[in-house]
């Protein structure tokens, strides 16, 4: 347990270094849908995605296209750091409500 805490703390020291001044883009989950469900971002530039879950239920924000999975509990928001993306569409979805929670990130 002590090792775990130690390692965790060690990793945490380095955590907030990156992308401190990256552009932030906001998206909200409401009624298990993303709004906006189409987000335009500049290509080849690191950005920060702030995902707010306005529902009472937890959601897992996930994308295979830009390789992110992150649980966001009800009423909270999470920060997702995106590496520079090539031009193109990148799909994302909410894993817990995949039938409605669908969106696309367009790098241009």
């Amino acid at each position, binding site marked *: 347990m002590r090792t775990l805490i130690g390692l965790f703390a060690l*990793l945490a020291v380095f*955590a*907030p270094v*990156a992308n401190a001044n990256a552009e932030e883009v906001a998206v909200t989950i409401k009624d298990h849908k993303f709004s906006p469900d189409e987000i335009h971002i500049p290509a080849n530039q690191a950005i920060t995605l702030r995902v707010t879950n306005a529902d009472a239920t*937890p959601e897992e924000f996930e994308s295979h296209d830009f390789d992110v999975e992150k649980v966001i509990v009800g009423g909270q928001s999470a920060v997702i750091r995106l590496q520079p993306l090539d031009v193109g569409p990148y799909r994302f979805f909410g894993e817990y409500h995949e039938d409605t929670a669908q969106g696309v990130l367009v790098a241009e």
Partner: protein
Amino acid sequence: MLGALVIVFREVVEAGLVVGIVLAATRGIAGRGWWVSLGILCGVLGASVVAAFAGAISNAFAGSGQELLNATVLIIAVVSLTWHNVWMAEHGRELAADMRKVGTEVSEGQKPLAVLAVVVFIAVMREGSEVVLFLYGIVVAGTDAVSLFTGGLLGLAAGAGLSALSYYGLVALPTRYIFSVTGLLITLLAAGMAAQAVRFLQMAGTVTVFQNKLWDTSWLLSDSSILGRALHVLVGYDDKPTALQVIAYAVTLAVILTLIRMARGERQPRTAS
């Protein structure tokens, strides 16, 4: 209902494959059932704790708490699996011999069991917390809960069934080969987990070097398919790995294989040949 089934099935299979390999790797060691059960039980408790504090964990460390926790427990699992393989290189032969003598007390065998129980705990905690959160969401939403719970239970049963199948496939191997095969599987499991840990550190923004994608084979086998996920757990398959992930994978493989070789060398001083 199908959605719930698929989600629970996926997570259970991911944890279950790890449990199956651990059970096969510890075949014949007295007390393994107890240790593995303890690992699963603690894993379920841990999953509930992680789920209950998901919000706080997520907000910790400038919003990177979840990724850092994942990376941390994965690194611990990698170390545990490495240790196990080195131990087996030192003691595997005696163990394989003892297995034929029923009832032999292998007290030394308790060490790898304790270490592998930690790996089981971590696997169940990681995948389980997602199941707990998902089920919690169903309870909160209250809509169609019975159907979703049925789906969840079916998913649990199907996932456990598939994991059991993988276990029985492994133990059906001749005793002679079983420790070689499970040793190889554990090595690949460790390398895959090291690559995943690196991925989480990159997601957290902790590590920013070598994050270019080396290849994209999602057209061939997607991470999101069941086979892709199973291979992801078993051998660390990733359809779009970053350079650092591939490096971590290769380094882990090299380190484990070198340590095994050294352990064997110490054990059996080279005879004149």
